[in-house]
């Protein structure tokens, strides 16, 4: 029976030759990722109640990001508890080194073909590496940590194909906003999305991660990209072993539930109006909108590639009067690399505020939150009312390039107006 990539990975994890979409199977996880918010403080009481320890500490990775830098009393307490738990359990722990979805592959934890759960809704990000990774809640995570197993309904596969080449000024984020607008936030129907096509193959790993990351906004369980040479090289460089990845692709005659085709060449930069990523439109059709805050942050929009793209627009330019640009790099390593290449200097030169490498305003858990009535243009994944601050704040979403262009213009602006011409 021909199998999709999703079926192949799940079958292997479930100890089966093949699996059929719709059947509920029990699979063994290769890795479980948890963070400070949904992790120790919520799973430990359940593990205690069950009276068991971790199924395998070597297969658990803990990352602190949501409450970093601990600038509230509660946040500081949660971080302390997280650190104690990491020491006690002996799991791999990345503390204040960046956002979990970015740190996990950066440290070589992810490999093609793995079956992975994460205690966070953007866990589909791991799909960019050809791993079946999806998000679960804390109770379910406690069950996984106790048993190493989880039930899963084998998903159908929705193939999303982008042919052609993206134009200058257009990024993976624009692909995802366009898809959210076109397919809606339940378009993924909690099935597996698989991205394919020449435009996808041409993307670097961090751009691919943006696609998989926002499979969450499509309502898919995961967002897979079959591994290729780019994946293998990236995993190797991160200190991982890509293993035998060549067979990790959907069979040509595997059953697809939907197959969408799009032409990358005709895609314009996108923005999504408050309060849903599905309110997407080409930036050229956006109403005249003055902004107070431009935010380049999150696992979705502040990786090295995102920072570089934004800096290319900002270089030698200044922020519009009255506009705050806040930049929260997605990981320490990405920030260090950006600093070494002068990218952080571009932000500083333009007058940006540099925030800690953490979830920051995206999670809205810390002291930094959007004030009442603020209009923000953000490179993050979601703009639900009240998420990043006061419910009266209005958050628009865009690519890091569009955020940078708008910070210069003081209003939502097309990054293509700033390409290739010196300030």
């Amino acid at each position: 029976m021909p199998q999709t990539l999703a079926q192949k990975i799940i079958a292997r994890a479930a100890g089966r030759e093949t699996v059929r979409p719709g059947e509920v199977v029990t699979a063994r996880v290769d890795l479980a990722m948890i963070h400070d918010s949904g992790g120790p403080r919520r799973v430990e009481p359940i593990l205690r109640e069950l009276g068991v320890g971790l199924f395998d500490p070597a297969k658990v990775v803990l990352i602190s990001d949501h409450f970093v830098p601990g600038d509230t009393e509660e946040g500081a307490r949660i971080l302390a508890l997280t650190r104690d738990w990491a020491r006690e359990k002996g799991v791999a722990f990345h503390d204040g080194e960046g956002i979990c979805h970015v740190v996990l592959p950066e440290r070589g934890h992810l490999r093609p073909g793995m079956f992975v759960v994460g205690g966070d809704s953007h866990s589909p990000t791991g799909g960019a590496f050809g791993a079946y990774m999806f998000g679960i809640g804390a109770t379910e995570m406690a069950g996984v940590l106790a048993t190493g197993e989880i039930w899963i309904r084998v998903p159908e596969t929705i193939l999303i194909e982008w042919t052609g080449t993206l134009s200058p000024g257009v990024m993976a984020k624009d692909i995802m906003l366009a898809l959210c607008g076109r397919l809606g936030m339940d378009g993924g129907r909690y099935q597996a999305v698989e991205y394919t096509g020449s435009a996808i193959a041409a993307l670097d790993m961090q751009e691919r991660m943006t696609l998989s990351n926002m499979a969450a906004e499509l309502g898919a369980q995961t967002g897979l990209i079959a591994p290729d040479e780019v994946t293998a090289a990236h995993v190797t460089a991160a200190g991982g072993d890509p293993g035998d990845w060549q067979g990790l692709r959907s069979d040509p005659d595997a059953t697809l539930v939907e197959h969408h085709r799009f032409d990358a060449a005709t895609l314009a930069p996108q923005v999504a109006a408050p309060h849903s990523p599905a309110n997407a439109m080409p930036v050229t059709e956006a109403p005249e909108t003055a902004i107070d805050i431009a935010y380049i942050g999150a696992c979705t929009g502040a990786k090295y590639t995102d920072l570089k793209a934004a800096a290319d627009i900002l270089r030698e330019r200044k922020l519009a009067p009255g506009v705050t640009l806040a930049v929260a790099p997605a990981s320490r390593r990405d920030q260090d690399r950006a600093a070494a290449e002068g990218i952080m200097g571009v932000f500083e030169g333009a007058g940006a505020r540099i925030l800690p490498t953490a979830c920051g305003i995206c999670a809205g858990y810390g002291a930094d939150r959007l004030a009442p009535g603020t209009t923000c243009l953000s490179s993050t994944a979601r703009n639900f009312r009240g998420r990043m601050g006061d419910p009266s704040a209005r958050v628009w979403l865009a690519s890091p390039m569009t955020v940078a262009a708008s910070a210069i213009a003081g209003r939502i602006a097309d990054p293509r107006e700033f390409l290739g011409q010196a300030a």
Partner: protein
Amino acid sequence: MTGRIFLLGDDIDTDQLAPGQYMRGGIEAIMAHCLEAVRPDFASSVRPGDILVAGRNFGLGSSREQAAEALKRLGIAAVIARSFAGIFYRNAINLGLPVLTAPSLDGVQDGDMAELDLDAATLSLPERGLTLQLDPLPGNLRALIADGGLVAHLKKRFARETGGS
């Protein structure tokens, strides 16, 4: 079980169920503000046994299971919707909160008294002379809910494993 219907629209997200600004506090703070953006009277007027009926994609958003926990702790007997976001759906089952889909929820009105039969997968509205057929839950998920959620289910399993050795 019998309860009053709270009727909600499409796309009720986890920030409406468990507002981000109360996530630092405990579950009581979240419960007090649950759904306040769409139903300011919800937390103060909900009674144990009440039923949420909603449109498409209920529970979209983050993986925070306080979204399901707040509903369960407020006494919601079940959430019935046209469709659910996957993570919320899993969380609810794992916390023992029944979540059911239905092909049609036409005719249900806010404030109706309703009787839910989980085994038969029906929702009856006696005042309207209406009985809606719901999609039955798969057997293994019904077992999880019947045990009271994943933790209780695992406790049983571990007790069996140690007891049987």
